[in-house]
């Protein structure tokens, strides 16, 4: 971290990675920015928790329509899960490459991350389209409203993540590995991993429990 950055947040003495108890003054930007982003991610998880709670309380409100075990296909979901988890791993590879300042591999891994995200998204859209086609769209019942909203909100996050990945690819290419770009990349990877955590919960609560015999 440079002295320039430190001063922007009020740091006038030497940078420190201290205990957070404030004895040495303000933290450096390399601590502050990811910390703030973590807080944002946590608040995002609270948003999802509201959607999970809604899903849990409406899952049996099917209004005479289809129930979970008639709709979900474990195979598709398994492929989706594989694609998303693998993309997180690849995102980690991109971070390692970026830390080493390797432009080519960073870009390649970011593109692969994005492509795996696209695979996930395509499968999800296909699943949604299939449900709507058999008359199990979100307007059918409260259960389906909650299902489409919870899973769709995650999908919307993945879409936002893809736009972010695209922006980062362009930005790294145009500007190189500046400290502030590295911080942004770190935030992106936090975001991408957080989407995995949410997905694991969706996978369990919606699909696994929903397809129990």
């Amino acid at each position, binding site marked *: 971290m440079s002295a320039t950055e430190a001063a922007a947040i009020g740091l006038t003495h030497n940078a420190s990675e201290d205990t957070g108890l404030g004895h040495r003054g303000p933290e450096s930007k390399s601590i502050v920015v990811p910390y703030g982003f973590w807080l944002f991610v946590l608040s995002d998880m609270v948003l999802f928790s509201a959607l999970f709670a809604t899903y849990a309380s409406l899952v049996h409100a099917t209004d005479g329509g289809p129930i979970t075990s008639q709709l979900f296909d474990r195979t598709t979901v398994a492929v989706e899960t594989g694609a998303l988890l693998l993309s997180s791993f690849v995102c980690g590879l991109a971070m390692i490459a970026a830390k080493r300042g390797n432009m080519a591999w960073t870009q390649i891994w970011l593109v692969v991350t994005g492509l795996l995200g696209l695979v996930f998204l395509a499968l999800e859209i296909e699943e949604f389209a299939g449900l709507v086609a058999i008359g199990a769209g979100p307007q059918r019942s409260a259960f389906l409203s909650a299902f489409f909203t919870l899973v769709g909100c995650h999908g919307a996050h993945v879409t936002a993540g893809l736009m972010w990945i695209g922006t980062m690819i362009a*930005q790294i290419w145009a500007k190189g590995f500046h400290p502030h770009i590295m911080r942004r990349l770190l935030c992106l990877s936090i975001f991408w991993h957080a989407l995995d955590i949410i997905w694991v919960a969706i996978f369990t609560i919606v699909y696994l429990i929903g397809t129990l015999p």
Partner: protein
Amino acid sequence: MFGELTWEAIPFDQPIPLITSLVVVLALAGIAFWAWRKGWWPYLWNEWVTSTDHKRIGVMYIVLALMMLVRGFADALMMRLQQSLAIGASQGYLPPEHYDQIFTAHGTIMIFFMAMPFVIGLMNFVVPLQLGVRDVAFPTMNNVSFWLTASGALLVNLSLFIGEFARTGWLAFPPLSEKAFSPGVGVDYYLVALQISGVGTVLTGVNFVTTILKIRAPGMSYMRMPVFCWTTLAANLLILAAFPVLTATLAMLMLDRYLGFHFFTNGGGGNSMLYMNLIWVWGHPEVYILALPAFGIYSEVVSTFSGKPLFGYRSMVYATLAICIISFMVWLHHFFTMGAGADVNALFGIASMIIAVPTGVKIFNWLFTMYGGRVRFTVPMHYAIGFMLTFVLGGLTGVLLAMPPVDFIVHNSMFLVAHFHNVIIGAVVFGVMAGYTYWFPKAFGFTLDERLGKIIFWCWFIGFYLAWFPAYALGFMGATRRLQHISDPSWAPYLHVEMVGALVILAGIVLTVVQLLYSIRTREQRLDVTGDPWDGRTLEWLTLSPPPHFNFAVLPDVHGEEAYWTRKLTAIRDEKLVEEPKYEDIEMPLNTPTGVICAFFASLTGFAVIWHIWWLAIVGLIGAFAVLVWYAWRDEHEHIIPAAKVAELERERRRIRGELLKTLTVPT
């Protein structure tokens, strides 16, 4: 092309909203023109609108809050007038569909666009100064937060002129707020405005939690932070944990309305009580998001004007955090009548009563701080004492309401409405008025007129009791809330007393404007040359009034609690200031129009969504995304204030402080 927007959206047949909005538009245009004639536009744009300075952003929040106070209070007066006229045979002057919009707008505006911006504005202005640092963690995001809040306020007020506002009450309960029963754009205005300002509020939460936990002056450990910083931290933790739930809930209602989903509808398996639960999971912590910072203000005020350290600092901190946590465990007391059963109701009733314990701890701490102190009866101290009296009464009626059997009787009655006005006015409004008076000299370099300030206090205090204590009685007599017409003529005397109370408060609000103008005109008589007009104890009084852009030339070293007080006593004892440090270049964040442009596109998108103008909504979203990418592409992040300039400003401050020091003696 224009979705559902037609000329019929303009209320040509309703004189009240039409004339009001024309007057407002003309007034705003007049002010804009006047500022243009004076050549102030570049100054306003460069120094305020695009500012990333937490002090400027704080002031802008408070200006927004004061404007919305006027708007929200106009609604309140109209309601009081209607209820004091429409008794028995008379129908008053407001038809039900208009009256319903007014009470909805009143609640929405007062909570989201008056109280929230006011406390967030005070946090913005005060917290970095009290922590002894130069800015918040994310200065640009701070500016974005403000403009998104302003964007929400704009949309709510736009509904006066284009279309209508919700007629559902300030929390838009379904099924009434569903498309089947509220087909107009009113609820959409409500939903979209709150979604946009809600994003701003969550970003504020991120910003302040990060600032307080990660950016403090050297030596400012947690247990040395002023209590206002603690309560700000607690309030912002609540924002982070509660506002996303609001976002999710309102989004679900939007999906119901726009796309025919069945979350809260009567048919399709929807469950409107789910909305009640979700909205109050946000709604109850929201009460404390407003009240906790107010408690922090009282702590600062009582300690300063009693000339004593805050009694029981640690217990104050623990009480704050206890309230922070318990506030998430009481939401069901807003609808005991849902019929969740005796066990559930008892649990939430007891939890609600328990929250009175840490609050009581706070009250005793303030009382004991005053005990044995040399209390100066300044305006903020008036508010603090008025608060303690009023808030205890409001708290007691709250404990009454926390008993499910009692609640079943007074649920949704005027008793309830009196209770929450008692706590919101008694704690939050008194608190922000105290904070406004207390920190005004720090912001502008002169104090507000004391005599007028005391009159304003008495207007609020007496006006509140006249306006709301009859309502407790009315509630027991069976008056439900939101009555457009009163059929029982025996209630008339109570309603007329309430009307008088509202007029007394009106006098207070008018005098607040008068006080501001008068204080600006006569500021030479009340200049705060030292930067420490109240003999303060926290770090904001260390720097000059108004503080330089960078707040502190060198970040203060904190030794012990009451950072500034300790430093002041040391200086008096040693008869000299601290050693002059070596000055260095200071880098401060650049100003940026990102926030205001983003909010422009957000308003555009919001308006388009309300009126189903889908192409415009897409244009707005693309615009907002493009602005963010454009901002992310910047190369210049900071500008430098050279060491020589810092030294010059700081030496002037030291000269002033040196002279002040000669006049000070160790307090007995």
